[in-house]
């Protein structure tokens, strides 16, 4: 089995290095094909590992080699495949295989084709390290690695100012969170003496709650950055500057869920500190609502989906924070499927619309892009949580978990958010695929995507449809590791809740259709009443948070830097040094006059010197005399 583990891990690396060889050369189709094949190899190996885990239930644990060893610190490259990580591996390899194949079509005309695959495969490799590592340090390698690849991929079209800006923003925001995670690692090491999961988890039980709380908080800060939780969320929406397959893979399915994975992985820690868990859940709930509200009005197709990702991540954190780790993982899995599907569908639309992102400028695309339409609708249904699609099972369980944990506020907010989710998803679908064919005004001739791209998307479609049925087997698989339990609410109540939720969601969908699928929709020009309302402005400007960051953090930082350099470094520190030097130099210049060569002057100075020496002698004599020696 170790063989498959290594294949699953290193196939993406090989793929990346292979593509790297051709980065500086023009497009070569075979790099895409080879890369995809290698990723699929990784997927197959992961599947073999999954079957192994399902059959035996035995986790596979290997230690490849030592990484760092000094003092009491020992960090190996160790890999662990258990029920949790194999789930993540499946998610990662499946989505990335799909995205790789899809990208062959999507990046068809791009001159950075080879480079794209190098980055994309490198990302998969980092993600595999992240999920497979058996210690926190290894997780951190993957953690930073995915950050790097995300930087490279968001800024893939580096000629665009906005893209590079977004790339840097994402990297730096992630670094802020990484610092938190690093501190968490330090705390774990100095308190438990190891960074291995098993050793650390065992030691956690003996630690005081205060220490555990700090560890929990710092690790969660790390998770907040990667999973774009408030207040570090702004980078995710801006990250949509990257190519759409990247958005699907990194900013929907895998990387952003790494934070959730971290919390699930550290469940032994978080179950010891439920108050931190509650904070996580509350923050998650808040983000779910907060992000959904921003998605309501946004006029950028990809950003809407990004906000919905943010919102769904909030759901996952809500679940994980409440101790329902397996539910969080399940929602992660389901979400990866349908969200990647939505993104890739959006990618098709973008391709058809020549990179147009405003859904108001589309409309009626159903006729030309039937398959994409179907996929988007199914993806949206799954996202909205309509029975019997994937989202229904996972989201409903989260609601149940909140309800049975007696967290009524969380429950209520999450329920309300579910409605919002349904609304904005179908607002998007309605605007893009139904109503007037507004795109004709802009002279675009949309066409359906390549056939193989659609085929490539089909596994995701499958996931979005059927994954819900797998809930019970999935629970059986992970319950051993995650100490989960199923949530049983009284039958009639459960039924009422189910019907109520479905009705609510259904109404929201209906409302979205009624409002946006009719022929009266025009391209907004900023004059309508709603566009001038306060709420709309607040939401379209993302609560003015990016503006505030720019104004109150970035600008002051830049000015302070300038100040430090121009004023402090040059005018104070360096000037002091030069001042000392010039004092000495000027003393020399001045005393040069003494050496006029005129004997008379020199004699006078001699007398002065004589007096000084004599005075010193006298003073010294007195000190000797009166100091009692």
């Amino acid at each position, binding site marked *: 089995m170790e063989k498959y583990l290594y294949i699953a891990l290193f196939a993406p690396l090989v793929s990346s290095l292979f593509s790297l060889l051709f980065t500086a050369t023009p497009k070569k189709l075979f790099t895409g094909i080879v890369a995809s094949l290698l990723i699929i190899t990784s997927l197959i190996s992961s599947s073999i590992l999954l079957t192994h885990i399902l059959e035996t239930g035995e986790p596979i644990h290997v230690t490849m080699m030592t990484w760092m060893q000094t003092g009491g610190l020992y960090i190996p490259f160790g890999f662990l495949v258990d029920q949790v990580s194999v789930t993540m591996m499946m998610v990662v390899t499946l989505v990335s295989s799909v995205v790789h194949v899809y990208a062959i079509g999507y990046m068809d005309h791009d001159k950075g084709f080879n480079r794209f695959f190098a980055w994309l495969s490198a990302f998969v490799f980092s993600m595999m390290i992240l999920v497979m590592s058996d210690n926190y340090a290894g997780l951190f390698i993957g953690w930073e690695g995915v950050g790097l690849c995300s930087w490279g991929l968001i800024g893939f079209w580096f000629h665009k100012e906005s893209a590079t800006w977004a790339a840097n923003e994402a990297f730096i925001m992630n670094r802020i969170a990484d610092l938190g995670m690093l501190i968490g690692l330090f705390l774990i090491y100095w308190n438990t003496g190891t960074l291995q999961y098993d050793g650390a988890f065992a030691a956690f039980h003996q630690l005081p709650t205060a220490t555990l709380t700090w560890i929990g908080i710092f690790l969660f800060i790390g998770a907040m950055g990667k999973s774009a939780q408030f207040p570090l969320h702004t980078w995710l929406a801006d990250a949509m500057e990257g190519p759409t397959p990247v958005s699907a893979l990194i900013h929907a399915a895998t990387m952003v869920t790494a934070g959730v994975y971290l919390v699930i992985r550290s469940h032994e820690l978080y179950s010891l500190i439920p108050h931190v868990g509650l904070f996580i859940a509350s923050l998650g709930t808040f983000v779910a609502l907060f992000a959904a509200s921003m998605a309501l009005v946004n006029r950028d197709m990809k950003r809407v989906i990004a906000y919905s990702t943010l919102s769904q991540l909030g759901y996952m954190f809500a679940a994980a924070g409440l101790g329902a780790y397996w539910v969080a993982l399940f929602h992660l899995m389901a979400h990866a499927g349908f969200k990647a599907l939505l993104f890739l569908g959006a990618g098709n639309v973008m391709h058809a619309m020549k990179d147009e992102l405003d859904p108001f400028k589309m409309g009626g695309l159903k006729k030309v892009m039937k398959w994409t339409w179907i996929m988007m609708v199914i993806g949206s249904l799954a996202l909205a949580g309509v029975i019997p699609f994937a989202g229904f099972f996972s989201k409903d369980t989260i609601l149940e978990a909140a309800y049975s944990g007696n967290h009524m506020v969380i429950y209520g907010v999450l329920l309300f958010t579910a409605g919002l989710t349904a609304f904005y998803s179908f607002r998007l679908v309605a605007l893009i695929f139904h109503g007037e064919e507004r795109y004709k005004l802009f002279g675009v001739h949309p066409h359906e995507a390549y056939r193989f791209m659609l085929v490539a998307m089909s596994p995701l479609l499958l996931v979005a449809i059927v994954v819900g049925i797998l809930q019970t087997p999935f629970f059986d698989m992970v319950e051993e590791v995650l100490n989960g339990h199923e949530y049983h609410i009284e039958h009639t109540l459960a039924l009422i809740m189910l019907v109520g939720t479905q009705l609510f969601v259904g109404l929201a969908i209906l409302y979205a259709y009624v409002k946006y699928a009719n022929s009266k929709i025009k391209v907004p020009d900023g004059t309508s009443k709603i566009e001038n309302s306060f709420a709309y402005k607040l939401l379209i400007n993302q609560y003015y948070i990016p503006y505030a960051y720019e104004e109150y953090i970035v600008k002051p930082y830049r000015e302070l830097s300038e100040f430090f350099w121009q004023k402090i470094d040059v005018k104070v520190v360096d000037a002091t040094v030069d001042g000392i030097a010039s004092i000495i130099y000027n003393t020399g210049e001045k005393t040069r006059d003494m050496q006029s060569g005129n004997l008379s002057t020199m004699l*006078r100075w001699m*007398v002065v010197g004589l*007096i000084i020496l*004599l005075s010193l002698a006298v003073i010294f*004599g007195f000190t000797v005399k009166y100091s009692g020696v």
Partner: protein
Amino acid sequence: MFEAVAFYLFAFLTITMFIITVTTSQALYALTALAAGMIFISAFFFILGADFLGAIQIIVYTGAVMALYAFGMMFFDTTRSVKEKQGNKFIITGLSTLAAVLVVLIVGAPMVSNNIVALYPTIDGMGNVQNVGLILFTKYLVPFELAAVMLLVAMVAGIVLAGKKMDRSITLTNDAELEIEKNKKVLS
């Protein structure tokens, strides 16, 4: 009483002479005043019982040194008055006084505290010259010999230095000749 009268008299004379020496603008006056001052100083030596030293003072200073100066002055143009353009006189006087006071302080301090012990005490019943001789030729024999050699060297040096081109006088050559000579030197 006699001692006091003599001290004050000679003190007054010495100081006057030396003040003339350092203030006069005529070189010849200065020379004369200096010679007189030297002789008056020897009076102090006699009062203090250092007869030998007094004799030496007269012989060496007034006899030899002053004669040297007098001969030396023949080479210079001593007839013009010496030009004296000095800066602040207070500084000069002040500095001098301060230095002098400090010297006294340093020299005087051990005596005030009375922790001085005679290294080579005078032997009673012996004349001053005998005392001097006794110590000079025992304890200070080497310095004495060195002083002798030094004097010899100084003599030779003085002759050699001053004796170059004794045959020509600069005061008597005119400027044009001097100019030519200077150019020659530069060329060579």
